[in-house]
């Protein structure tokens, strides 16, 4: 497999850049084997940030991408889309968490920067071994189950039913209504609960 990794280091405004020396991280990343291109940007998840990734893939003929920014639980999907828009398989991408697990939990600039460099190195080594993966599909049973027939359950069931789908509403008691039916009037309008 060709080894042309692009590394994109996000500053997240000052969230990352105030603790981690992002420029140095990008410089160091550029020296890792396989890395063809490394840069920083203020907000990598923003439209211009994603455009930067897309354009760099094209211009630098990148084959794999590493984004060093926030937690993958936050923006992994965003960047997979950006990578795909650049024309490479979205799974030839790795995300490195230098915000939640670095800049937000450390205060020593030198140590945090060294950690960020290590984490980027880890991401690059991994992405070099990534395989292109294909998304498959599964069928959907177009029917919903609502457990509990109180206010929440009835409202959800009605909204789904109004949307045109079948709903099964299961209630523990012999009548739906839940606690609501025991209430008298309800604030702030003081209209009747049932």
């Amino acid at each position, binding site marked *: 497999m060709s080894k042309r990794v692009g590394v994109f280091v996000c500053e997240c405004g000052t969230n990352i850049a105030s603790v981690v020396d992002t420029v140095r991280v990008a410089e160091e990343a550029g020296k890792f084997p396989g890395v063809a291109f490394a840069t920083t940007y203020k907000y990598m998840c923003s439209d211009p940030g994603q455009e930067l990734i897309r354009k760099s893939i094209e211009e630098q003929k990148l084959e794999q991408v590493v984004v060093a920014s926030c*937690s*993958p*639980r936050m923006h992994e999907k965003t960047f997979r889309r950006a990578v795909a828009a650049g024309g490479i398989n979205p799974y030839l991408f790795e995300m490195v*968490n230098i*915000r*939640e*697990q*670095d800049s*937000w*939990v*450390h*205060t*020593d600039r030198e*140590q*945090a920067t*060294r*950690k960020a460099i*290590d*984490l980027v190195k*880890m991401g690059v080594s991994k992405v070099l071994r990534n395989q292109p993966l294909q998304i498959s599909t599964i069928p959907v049973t177009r029917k919903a189950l609502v457990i509990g027939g109180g206010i929440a359950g009835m409202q959800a069931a009605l909204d789904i039913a109004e949307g045109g789908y079948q709903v099964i509403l299961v209630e523990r008691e012999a009548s739906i209504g839940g606690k609501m039916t025991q209430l008298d009037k309800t604030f702030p309008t003081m209209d009747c609960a049932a």
Partner: protein
Amino acid sequence: MSINYDQNWNPTIIVFACNWCTYAAADLAGLNHLEYPADVRIIRTPCSGRMDPMLVLRAFNRGADGVLLSG
């Protein structure tokens, strides 16, 4: 109980963190800006069930000072 260690020593500590709990918890620590030593390096695993003892041995073999499995 207290641990005395060289303040200048930067150990290599590898954490294998389950994506669903420990990794999320580490993110939550970040959200709350709870500070901890910067020697910790987290490797994300899809689940702690994915952990292979081989990986722990590999880490020690390559010079890690400590390994934490959490999930």
